[in-house]
């Protein structure tokens, strides 16, 4: 099951003037290379999803 985190922040009401900005066409910032520490259940889950080619949702089941 997805790990849902309850947070205590309560965002304020939208300003009357707010209009959702039109699609910006922007892409996410480039990724960087890192070396994971091969330990713990989270690493196991990460590898399992990759090896068995599972999405997060499929892996939840």
């Amino acid at each position, binding site marked *: 099951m997805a790990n849902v985190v309850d947070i205590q922040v309560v965002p304020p*009401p939208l300003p009357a003037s707010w209009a959702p900005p039109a699609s910006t066409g922007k892409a*996410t*910032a*480039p990724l960087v290379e890192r*070396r*994971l520490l091969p330990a713990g259940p989270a690493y196991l889950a990460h590898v399992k999803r990759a*090896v068995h080619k599972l999405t997060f949702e499929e892996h939840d089941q």
Partner: protein
Amino acid sequence: MAAQPNGTADAPIEVSLIPTVVGINFGNSYASIAEGSAECIANEDGERQIACAVSFHGEEIYIGNQAKHQLVKNSKNTITGFRNLLGKKFSEIPSDKPSVSAPVIQHPEQPDVAAYKVQVLQAAPSPLPTTASNTPAASNAATPRSEPTPAERILTVSEVTTIFLKSLVQSAEDFLGKKVQGAVISVPTWFEDAQRAALEQAAEDAGLKVLQLLEEAAAAAVTTTTDATSSGLPADRTQLVVDLGASALELHLLSLREGLAFSRGTLSDRAVGGDAIDDKLIRFFAKEFTKKTKTALAVSPAGGAQDARAEAKLRLAAEHTKRTLSASPGAATCSVESLKDGLDFAGTITRLRFDMEVRAVYDAVLARARALVDAAGADLLDVDEVVYVGGSASLPGLDETLAQGLREDVVTPFTAGTVVGGGVGDPTTILARGCALQAKLVATLADGTEEEREVRAAFAGGSKWTQARATSKTVGMLFPEEGAEGPLGGQWIPTVLKDTAVPCRRTLRFDVDLGEAEGEKKVGFEVWEVKEGVKIEKVKPPKDEEEDMPEDGEEEEEEEEIEVKERTVEKENLLTALHFAAKEAKKAKGRWTTKVEVQFLIDENGALEISAWEIGASGRGEKTSVSVPAS
């Protein structure tokens, strides 16, 4: 097997599905071993920190702290510091350092192999049993056992390691009452392939199956991310691991993201550690001794052979002094019988005085921590949690010193109160615990299918699965607000932090304020990538002691400004926005609110998908989603 009465079936054999596995912290100075439930096991002498020392005395072999005590009178037959030499050729070992234990020599037969030469007594062969037929009556009395004979024994570094590991495992088996079936052993980050291979071989020679060689930083991460132990800390956090052992300081800046960890930087300093602390402490006590007895004593460096013997005694005694100081705030004693010229020594030191004496070591740790975060492009203020590893990190003065550079709300095992009584934050047990938890994880992996074997192989050294890509900017939700304070113009909720390995998923649930107005209500937010930094402001300290200041303006000039550091967040890239009508809003005290769930999903290429649901009585409502392509 005991004889069974006829007709009874064998008692069912208890077959546990979980094999008996242990975690071993194998340091250069001390080792510790933990079992499945991650508690450290004491050896037969009641020690949980077992000195990595093997000493030969006559027919006896001492291992552990008993062996360390042999450093005073039997140093040339006492072997220490072997862990760091594993997998090294003789020619690779620097010979400049004077050794207080058995010197490392070139093996007499094997080329370029490091070894030790010790004097032992070899047990004489037992006398032949007498037989009735050929023994003359006169000599029918038992043949006296002949004396053991002195002999020389050559041991390679690997053989010493095997002897030591065997004894560790034996202690664990005695305690558990079961055979140990496998172990995860910690190794320093800088251990090269040859060193790893040599350790694995030495363990195998000791009859120990190595499940995984685990980097020390990883062992610390496992212990601190295991649910029961994380004390209300966020699952996404930056951790500074401070490992202060005997002969070195190792620092790691870890990015922990829902338990998935990687190192953003590592730094070691061989000049900082418990040995350096001992140098200062024994110099302090030597001075005390001279003051009290009017007998000259120079230690570290020693003044002569007699002083060297005294130094060895003081070093052993200092161990107890340091442990007392970290365990309680009162004064600690140091006593040595016949320290020099037959004179006994009994001294005390308060924690305050001790901290003063070793201040330079604490300060060096803080300076190196600063250098580490700098090199990683971060700041000490980014550190959410400090984890202490290594015996010398048990000293509270170290935590107090580091606090000067860290955020006020940083969590350390001292602030969390988990150091005392061998708690989960105890720096001397944390690595063995992590290894034990990891051993359990690895030992229960299936290997029936090709894929399962692949998953299992991901824990072996150099697995390709450790190669990952991570985000380079924090991305989150900005809820715009009328007349909001601050530069962002609304409520900022960071969702996927910078340095999160992909693919990743984060799901947040929270209430949204919809205001007082009736009619159609809308939930909406913008998705931004932000630039995080630290703002340094120089402020003049408040002048409250005006009267005490001298009249001439000179002092005024020299008055130092204080640096005030603050973390900052700036908008950088607006990626997209998401909005939907709230249908399940509830009114309380005149204001409407509704509960929402928002999920950020980043795929292996960096593409982002954001989904949101209103959460009503029957769970998730309609899904709204938008996506942002990878660059």
